[in-house]
């Protein structure tokens, strides 16, 4: 077991913004992901949180090379994915898979469960043809579906069951890394719990490294070993899940955590809320320096000067705030 199974260095994804019908001119750049660095150990679960538009989905897709990175490296088990040519990348894709938010949209309605799972196995030629039947059945059992549903179509399943199929399809090629982009957001509370339990169990049993993207902090806190908080294309804080949730260091994390409603009326009454004013700024025209400073209650003049780097706060945690030590004393 290597220390850093997945290592991401200074990853950037910039999208050009163009205008004009015939002659297209570049009028700006959206820095959806702007210099993200982190590493994960094998079997670790990282929760990636942030508001809509902060770049968490783009980061997930860039790690998997579904969007080519503008800059930076993604090293998975010693191999830099960002540097692979088309053919090698295709070969490697079995190592990293994705689970999407909407199981209604991510499954082909004309393929039976068997077709969907067998297609993945055949495409990567990992499993001998004679064994496919058996493997599909085993896979279905693994995700909690009865193998007798193997000839059914997606529309015959409920949302939770479809998400199980989507998980099974991701697992069909025996990946080492899975990125799950809001995998439970479209599901009801009672079904959410089933899928969270399943992902946690699979990660444990198969030593699967998992990046769990969600806007729902309470879900992320429950499943993750560590949490990374994103704001406007950058990670502002990373640390062990419980610590990030209970003693957030970055002012943005503080606001985010305090905004999460707790389903407990007693605790709700006693809480001190940090209510942010305004909306997240436009990524087309981000504020100078720390992009959170216009909404930050701790902002000082130097906050608008330079982009703060992610710095080690204590052995387990890093935070990108120049006043982190000052505001988190005692």
């Amino acid at each position, binding site marked *: 077991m290597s220390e850093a199974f997945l290592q991401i260095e200074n990853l950037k994804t910039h999208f050009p913004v163009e205008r004009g019908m015939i002659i297209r001119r570049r009028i700006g750049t959206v820095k959806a992901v702007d210099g993200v660095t982190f590493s994960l150990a094998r079997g670790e679960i990282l929760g990636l949180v942030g*508001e*809509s538009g902060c770049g968490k989905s783009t980061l997930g897709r860039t790690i998997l090379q579904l969007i080519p990175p503008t800059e930076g490296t993604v090293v998975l088990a010693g191999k830099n994915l960002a540097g692979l040519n088309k053919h090698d990348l295709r070969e490697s894709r079995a190592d990293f898979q994705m689970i999407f938010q909407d199981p209604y949209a991510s499954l082909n309605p004309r393929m039976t469960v068997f077709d969907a799972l067998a297609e993945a196995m055949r495409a990567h030629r990992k499993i001998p043809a004679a064994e496919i039947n058996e493997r599909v059945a085993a896979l279905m059992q693994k995700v909690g579906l009865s193998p007798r549903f193997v000839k059914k179509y997606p529309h015959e399943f*409920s949302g*939770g069951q479809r998400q199980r199929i989507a998980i099974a399809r991701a697992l069909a090629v025996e990946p080492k890394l899975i990125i799950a982009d809001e995998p439970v957001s479209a599901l*009801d*509370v*009672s079904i*959410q*719990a*089933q899928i*969270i*339990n399943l992902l*946690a169990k699979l990660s444990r049993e198969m030593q699967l490294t998992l990046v769990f993207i969600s*806007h729902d*902090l*309470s*879900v992320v*806190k*429950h*499943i993750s070993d560590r949490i990374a908080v994103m704001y406007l294309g950058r990670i502002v804080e990373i640390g062990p*899940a*419980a610590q990030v949730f209970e003693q957030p260091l970055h002012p943005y994390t503080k*606001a*985010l955590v*305090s*905004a*999460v*409603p*707790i*389903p*407990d*009326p*007693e605790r*709700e*009454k006693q809480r001190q*809320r940090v*209510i*942010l*004013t305004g*909306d*997240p700024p436009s990524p087309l025209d981000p504020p100078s320096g720390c992009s959170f400073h216009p909404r930050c209650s701790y902002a000082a003049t130097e906050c608008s000067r330079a982009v703060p780097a992610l710095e080690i706060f204590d052995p387990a945690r890093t935070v990108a705030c120049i006043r982190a030590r000052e505001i988190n004393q005692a």
Partner: protein
Amino acid sequence: MCGLQKIDAMPLLQVKNLRTYFHTRNGVVRAVDGVSFEIEKGQTLGIVGESGSGKSVTCYSMLGLIPQPPGRIESGEAIFDGVDLLKAGPPQLRKIRGKRIAMIFQDPMTSLNPYMRIEDQLIEPLLIHERTDRRRAVELGVQALKDVGIQDAAQRIRSYPHEFSGGMRQRVMIAMALITKPDLLIADEPTTALDVTVQAQIIELVKRMQAERGMAVIWISHDLGVVAGLCQRVNVMYAGRVVESGPTDGIFRTPQHPYNRALQKSIPALQPKGVELYTIAGMPPDLSKPVAGCAFAPRCEFVQDICRTPVELKAGASGQSTACVRVQNGDLKL
């Protein structure tokens, strides 16, 4: 049938035995099947439940917003300040809807007209319901936008909806709903499409508006956390029925109905990390197939034969009503 009868004051809204069915090709879907509740002036009532439990259909039925056909209100009454909304004719309903009862919807983009300036949409209720003259209405509109925390309201009122962010659009919706000073605001998942930080802003805003104006609020949500912080009373719905109802504290602290308890136990926020989450076996029932007795029985871990007999919501000792035969008989304590 509907809990304690109050003699002194009439509640602002009293819903009795509401049944809304949809007659579809695949059978009769009993979306709302015998719902009764009431709300006092200035009170906040939360309605929680999973998708398809009938929370929205309950409120849409009261306001005559159910497409008929296929929908049909089979029975029930909804007495709002002496008027039965379910029997009121369209002209009478129009006088109440948008003036005394206002509604905000989940998706502010689809509920604002993209071709109209904010100004025209915002002041429309004033022009229609109060016959305010236009200049005065615009003044009130600007003030309403200021009240919901939109900066440069005098300029922004001339904008179109696409020029606003999601949170700002929802503020506009709230400003529009409140501009006629309604007695009752019905909010149907108003923050589900928003980020948590913006959600917190909107909740604070509704709380403040409510404190200032003393209106009653019905807050429909699947998010138990939001309801816990905002509402005084909560109705928990399952398969078209209210299965538990009572003061918020009791609903969260001492759930008595097995469904409510299971729901509370399956929320990740309340569980320690790493512990396997409690899950409810099975799936919500198909509402087009009539259910004998308790609709939750097939998924309930405490089920007995008696659960197949019809069950009504009955008030218990603590002012908390539960629709579970075993709890009512006293042989099940959760």
